[in-house]
Structures are given as structure tokens and as C-alpha cells.
């Protein structure tokens, strides 16, 4: 697919997404838009997709495993909640979330990547549980299990984003910018190096690519996407407690990226969609939802490990594949 075609498809997708929650009956079209809850779910999907893009960069492009993405989302969310409550503007909190999580990513990744494969998985596993302990125990800062409530939605250029559709547009805008940045990174020489790494690390190294440095930067950038997602998550749900940032949700992030199709550009969006929307649709099955989900994942890994996007690609005619 050429760059222009990709840009065109991206822009039309953006227009459709922007209009999705809007009531179009006022302009004569038979589409009632989405209600408050529907818009909330749609916004949650975008926020989840940002964190999932980060996981995809780490898992699908740099070939590592991360089991701490929910913890990074948590760091971003707590940082934003605590600082904005003490009067710091949202923009500063958002930037700080990105920088802090990037720095933590470098510090965590550096020792782990010195050794063999899978050690990053173990280090992130430990980090994830440690973060959860801090969120739960440091009550003076985080409110412990009671959490932090009444987190305010930010305002943009003096315009309050309290209205749910306006906040959705705001998140959609940030998601598009972050998507564009990631696609630019993946098309740059840096991104080409990632692909070379994933396809054949031995050859990549012999061609002069500093494997460890690139992997480390990919990991840290992926963590920063988690932090930025968290920074948007806090004002979206307006209340945070430690439970969505535990080890379990971190594992779910891994699952959603692989289900969507790791190493494909659309995979995180599809996987995040499945993770956010399926529980809503399968609500009738109630407690058995996770059981069904787990079985589906196992069958999927055995039959088509390329994920949903991988499967869709396979059904396209060879010529039309990007």
C-alpha cells in the first residue's frame, strides 16, 4: 500500500470515528449517535489502544515480552490524578507521565536486556507487582484501596472538556497524533532496524545495528505509550484505585495485542476493541466471560498465531496485501 493510500484510509477512518457518537438527525440523517455510556466505551477503547500500541511496539516489533503495561498505565494515571488535583495543568501532567514512564523503561530495560531473552519478561513481572504494592500501600499519596476520586476533565484553550463528546474528540485527537508518530517511527530507519531485528537478529547485528540499544529504546517508548494512556485514563473514569493496574490486567494487555495481531499496525486497535467491547456484548454470559475468552485465545494461538489481522490478511488476495 502506498503512503498516500494509507493516509487517505487513515483520514477517512478518523472522520467516521469522529462522527460516530454524534446525533446526525439534526442535519437530516437517520443516525441517532451514541449515548453517554456508548461514548465512554468508545473513549475507553481509544485509551486502551494507545497502551496496546506500546505493547505492540515491544512485542511485535522489538521481539520482547512485557508484563507490566498496566503498571505503566497506572503510573501515568496516578501521576496525572495527583498533580492535576494540586493545580498542575493537564498538559504538563501528560508530558510528565510520558517522560517519567520513558525513564523508568530505560532503567528497567537496561539490566534486563544485558542478559538472555525472556529476562525482560521476568523483570517487568516483578515491577508490575511492586507497583501494585506501592499503589495499594502508600495511602498518603494514592489513597490506598479507597483510590482517588473526582479527578477533573481537563480544558483545552479555555474550552472545558466536561462534555463527553468533546472529551472523546480530545482523546481521538491525541490517539491520531500518537498513531501517526508510531507509524513515522516504524517507517524511519529506526523502524526498519526493528523489522530487521525481528526477522533476523544475527544478521541485523552483523550489519551494524546496535541490537540492545534499539531494543531498549523500543521498550522505553512502549512504556511511555502506556504512561500517556494512563494520563488520559484518569480523567476519563474520574476515579482510580489499584485494581486495574495489577498483574492480571498487564497479562490481558499482552493477550489483546497478540489476539489482534502482534507486529501488524492495526493489531492493537482490533485487540483493544475485542478486549473492551467483548465484555459488554458477552454480559449475558456474566461470570463465564473470562473462561470463554481464555479458551478462544488458546484455540487461536494453536490455529492462527498471527491474530485477527493476520487472519484477515491471509483471506485477502496476495496482490492486495500491504
Amino acid at each position, binding site marked *: 500500500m502506498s503512503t498516500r493510500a494509507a493516509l487517505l484510509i487513515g483520514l477517512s477512518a478518523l472522520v467516521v470515528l469522529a462522527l460516530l457518537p454524534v446525533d446526525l438527525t439534526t442535519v437530516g440523517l437517520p443516525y441517532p449517535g451514541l449515548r453517554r455510556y456508548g461514548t465512554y466505551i468508545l473513549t475507553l477503547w481509544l485509551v486502551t489502544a494507545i497502551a496496546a500500541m506500546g505493547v505492540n511496539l515491544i512485542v511485535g516489533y522489538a521481539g520482547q515480552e512485557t508484563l507490566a503495561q498496566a503498571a505503566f498505565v497506572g503510573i501515568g494515571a496516578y501521576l496525572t490524578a495527583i498533580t492535576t488535583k494540586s493545580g498542575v495543568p493537564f498538559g504538563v501532567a501528560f508530558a510528565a507521565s510520558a517522560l517519567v514512564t520513558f525513564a523508568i523503561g530505560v532503567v528497567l530495560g537496561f539490566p534486563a536486556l544485558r542478559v538472555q531473552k525472556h529476562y525482560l519478561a521476568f523483570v517487568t513481572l516483578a515491577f508490575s507487582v511492586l507497583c501494585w504494592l506501592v499503589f495499594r500501600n502508600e495511602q498518603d499519596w494514592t489513597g490506598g484501596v479507597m483510590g482517588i476520586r473526582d479527578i477533573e476533565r481537563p480544558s483545552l484553550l479555555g474550552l472545558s472538556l466536561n462534555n463527553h463528546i468533546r472529551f472523546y474528540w480530545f482523546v481521538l485527537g491525541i490517539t491520531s497524533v500518537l498513531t501517526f508518530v508510531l507509524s513515522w517511527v516504524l517507517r524511519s530507519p529506526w523502524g526498519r532496524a526493528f523489522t530487521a531485528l525481528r526477522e533476523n537478529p544475527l544478521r541485523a547485528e552483523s550489519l551494524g545495528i546496535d541490537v540492545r540499544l534499539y531494543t531498549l529504546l523500543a521498550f522505553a517508548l512502549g512504556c511511555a505509550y502506556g504512561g500517556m494512556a494512563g494520563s488520559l485514563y484518569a480523567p476519563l473514569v474520574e476515579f482510580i484505585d489499584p485494581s486495574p493496574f495489577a498483574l492480571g490486567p498487564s497479562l490481558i494487555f499482552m493477550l489483546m495485542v497478540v489476539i489482534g495481531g502482534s507486529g501488524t499496525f492495526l493489531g492493537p486497535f482490533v485487540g483493544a476493541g475485542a478486549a473492551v467491547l467483548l465484555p459488554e456484548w458477552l454480559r449475558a454470559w456474566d*461470570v463465564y466471560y473470562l473462561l470463554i475468552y481464555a479458551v478462544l485465545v488458546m484455540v487461536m*494461538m494453536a490455529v492462527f498465531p498471527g491474530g485477527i489481522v493476520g487472519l484477515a490478511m491471509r483471506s485477502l488476495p496476495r496482490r492486495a496485501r500491504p
Partner: protein
Amino acid sequence: MTDLLQLLIAGLATGAIYALAAIGFTLLWQTSQTINFAQGEFVMMPAFLALIAMRWLGLPFWAALLFSMLASMLLLGVAFRYIVVGPLIRQGVLPLVISTIALSILLKESVKDFYSAEAQPFPTLLPDTPITVAGITVSLAQLGVLATALLTIALLQWFLAGTLTGRQMQATAQNPTVARLLGVPVERMILYTFLINAALAAMASLLISPIYLAKFSNGETLGLIAFVAAIVGGFNQVRGAIVGGLLIGVLDNLAAAYVSTAYRQAIPLILLVLVILFRPQGLLGRREERAV
């Protein structure tokens, strides 16, 4: 001083149980490159199999233990090998990792939805009678746990080093291609590893459940400890897993007594990070050649 010794013995008892789970984890990794993210749930499950045997099948306690052991080997050994790992071996490591994560969710949710979400009391083989020797008080149950776990480990070590099958398993772990050339039935050795892992997990489960109660979410902590024990000791060594397990058991008990209970869970994790920083091959491990 007596307090310290008592804590030490209690720590060794739980540590020996952790070691069982960690050994299984290491064996699976060695022979089939399977990182089992469901190992904690493998240790949670057999206790519930025993409870099912007692409550629904009406078996007496000793028969329920036997039932649990056999059912675990069938479900967590044979079925795991052929239904979960089998189809995924050729798909590479990541799909297998994802699949075992999904399996851990499946086991946990099954127990929660079909048995109970509450912690279940679990009967113990030996009574809790305190014994005092030279001023040190330990319970009979603790000594029983320690003796059973150490005996199991000793038996396993003898099997791996002293019998033909055990040596064939080691050969498979070290180099499957050469082992196959030398006439070792590699496929069967891999199945044996899965059976041994299931049996060790069942053993750990039946020993630890009287202490911590049986609960669907126990696997989260147990799995984490098995990981940490295996890596701290040296990922490629059974001996390492034993040392790692005992060390974490002792540290965990000391931390509960002398450090805040809120951060007790953090101690093994900090140990893990320190080991990865300063001795990545593990306490007993040999430095591995880099794969690249």
C-alpha cells in the same frame, strides 16, 4: 535466637514446597523450552481436585490425595502436553507464552465459577502438635512437610542421576538432537518431564494448602515465587531451583516477622531484581553462551 531458629525452620518448610514448584518449572523449560506461566495455577489446582474427590465422590482423605495426584498427572501432565503445548511447539515461543497465560486464566476462573470463590480449609496429614527440642518449638506438621518435600527432592535427584531413564531425560534436556541420534526416545522423555512437573506441582499443592488454605487466586503468588526461585537459583539447573526455593521460603518468613507485612511480598521481587543486576546466571548457574 530461638525465635530466629524457629522462623528458619518454618521458612525451610515453606521453602521446600516452593522448591518443588520451581524444579518442575525448570525441568519444563529445559526439556521443551516451555515457559509455563500457569505454573502457579498448577500448584493451586490439585488441592481442589482432592476437595472434589472428598466432597463430590465421597472418597476418604488418603484416597482423595491419591486421586488428586493421578488426576493432576493426567490433566496437568498428559493433557497439557498434548492439547496445549503440542499444537504450539512449531508456532514459536510467543504463542506458547500467550497460551499458558490464557490457561492460567482458564484454571483460575474454572475453580472460581464451578467450585467456590471462598478460601477452603484443607485437612492435614499430621496434627499441629508442638514439639520442643532444646528450647525450640516446632510443630509436627511443619517437620512432616519439610521431611516429605526433601524426600521428594532426594528421590527426584536419584531418579535423574541414577537411573537410565533419568539420564536419558537429562540428555534430552541438554541436546535433543544428539540425544535422538544416540537412540534416546526424545518424545517419551518430554512426556515424562510433563508428568514429573504435574506430580511435583500436586505434591506442592497438597503440602501447602493446609498452611495457606486452598483458594482460586493462590496461583498468582505461588507462580511468581516459583519463577523467582527458578531464576534466583539459576534458570538452567535443578539444584538452583532447590536453593532458590529454600532461600525465598526463609526470607519470606523472616520478612513477615521483621519487615512490614504490607511489603512482605516485595522481598522476593527485590531479590530477583538484585540477582538479575549482579548475577544474571543465578546463584548456582553457569554463565550461558549468548545465543546470538
